[in-house]
């Protein structure tokens, strides 16, 4: 297996862009990544494009990636569309990594692109409910906020976590989002505001849920040889893991066993431990999700993340910066774009280019994306570790 470097990243602002077509969002992010890498569209040898909801939101099925990349002038190469719930973008990135690591290609492109908002929240909710088993759970009325509300209630029962502690995730991530020029929300909030906002599915209020939004991100992955020739500031892919749940119907849903498995595999592959991380972009689609996932991945001991939040240990200047970008809660979550946007965020920190939200002297970062809820388990869990 060959070493793989990320030498270019790009990302649009995240937000609601009713008048901007999908292909335009994807074009901008890809063009920025090419400029960042100092490359031409002709240099790209293979591309993977992640998207999750276009089939329902805009009706674009089957050939989205090709439509986006023709706008960039990318032609006559293999292009594959990747759909894997919230992990669509990170799965596209992993495919691109495999293409280069295997030795078959030297330059690969990963793009994530999504329009989640078309002016109709009911339609967006329906699209997202597609991350459950449509003929069973979604058909009965289980939404994604509903799925996480149920997990939150079991978690709170088991560990004694309070609503105030859950809300602190949103407060922290909104504070970080204010420092990120690409963030959908740039407004601080208080615990009281989070708790008093509209109830979506008890205990999750609207400010405990990621917003609906649009955006795109792109990354260029190359072999060591190409990196040495083309880049002064490569970031290395130290681990890439993708896995799926067990779907046991009597599993304890207050734990994220799947993150445990993926985290263990990723740290083993990178040859480091959680204590070596400087930052982690963790899939905080809901406040409870950041809790369960940082603990599941082994970044924080079981049942202790409430204390971490109380003590500020996951702030940008804390023991381990969790979601310095603002995370999904503030930066936004255009589903298929998120995984690649996390890679861009980690790369900027490792290159020292993260501006006001820069994690000081960052050398190693983790990006985690998990998607869906089937048989109350997780269909897709993707972890990447990047290092300087």
């Amino acid at each position: 297996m060959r070493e793989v470097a990320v030498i270019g990243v790009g990302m649009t602002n995240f937000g609601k862009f009713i008048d901007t077509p999908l292909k335009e969002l994807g074009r901008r992010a890809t063009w920025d990544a090419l400029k960042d890498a100092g490359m031409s569209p002709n240099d790209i040898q293979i591309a993977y494009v992640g998207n999750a909801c276009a089939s329902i939101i805009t009706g674009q099925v089957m050939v989205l990636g090709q439509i986006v990349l023709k706008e960039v002038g990318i032609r006559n190469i293999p292009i594959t569309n990747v759909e894997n719930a919230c992990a669509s973008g990170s799965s596209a990135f992993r495919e691109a990594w495999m293409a280069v690591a295997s030795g078959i290609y030297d330059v690969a492109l990963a793009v994530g692109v999504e329009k989640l908002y078309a002016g109709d929240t009911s339609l967006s909710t329906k699209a997202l409910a597609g991350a459950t088993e449509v003929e069973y759970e979604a058909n009965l009325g289980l939404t994604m906020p509903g799925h996480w509300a149920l997990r939150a209630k079991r978690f709170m029962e088991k560990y004694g976590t309070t609503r105030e502690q859950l809300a602190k995730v949103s407060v922290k991530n909104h504070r970080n989002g204010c420092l990120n020029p690409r963030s959908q929300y740039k407004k601080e909030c208080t615990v009281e505001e989070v708790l008093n906002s509209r109830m979506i599915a008890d205990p999750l209020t609207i400010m405990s849920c990621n917003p609906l939004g649009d955006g795109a991100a792109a990354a260029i992955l190359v072999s060591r040889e190409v990196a040495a020739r083309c880049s002064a500031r490569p970031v290395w892919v130290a681990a890439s893991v993708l896995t799926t749940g067990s779907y046991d119907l009597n599993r304890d849903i207050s734990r994220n066993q799947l993150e445990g498995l993926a985290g263990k595999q990723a740290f083993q592959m990178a040859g480091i431990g959680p204590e070596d991380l400087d930052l982690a972009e963790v899939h905080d689609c809901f406040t409870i999700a950041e809790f369960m996932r940082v603990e599941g991945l082994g970044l924080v001991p079981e049942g202790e993340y409430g204390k971490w939040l109380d003590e500020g240990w996951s702030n940008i200047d804390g023991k381990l910066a969790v979601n310095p970008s603002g995370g999904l809660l503030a930066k936004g979550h255009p589903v298929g774009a998120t995984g690649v946007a996390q890679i861009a965020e980690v790369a900027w920190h490792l290159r020292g280019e993260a501006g006001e939200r820069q994690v000081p002297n960052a050398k190693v970062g983790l990006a985690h994306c998990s998607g869906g809820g089937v048989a109350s388990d997780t269909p897709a869990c993707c972890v990447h570790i990047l290092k300087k």
Partner: protein
Amino acid sequence: MSDVTQEKKTIPLIPGAFEMEGNEPHLIGTKCTKCGKAFFPPRYICSYCLTDEWIERAKLGNKGKLYVYTVINVASREFNPPYAFGFVMIEPENIRIATLISGVQDPNELQSGTEMEMVIEKLRTDKAGNDVTTFKFRRVAK
């Protein structure tokens, strides 16, 4: 084309999900006769024995204990929120069923472990005027 008005039908939301035995509804799943594990929705290969050799269609329990529930306030409009939704561990199979919860509006009214029973209720009327029904679980009356 016939212009005879079609008779209103009762259509289950999930085809084949339940069956009536007299007045008692039962979920229809599968069971592995080797390891004893049950599945709902039905799986036709046992996830544990990894073979289809011992799997059989099975009438599953219609009672169980509440695992957890919530009230969903925002959903696609066909579901007409708010509504209570949760997981029930059915007995004797001890597997988790995703289900609408009948008879509660307050997300903090029922405790985990509450005894529950299955009922069949009308969920909505479809565009053709048919009644769409589904299984739900409700607290066993004391």
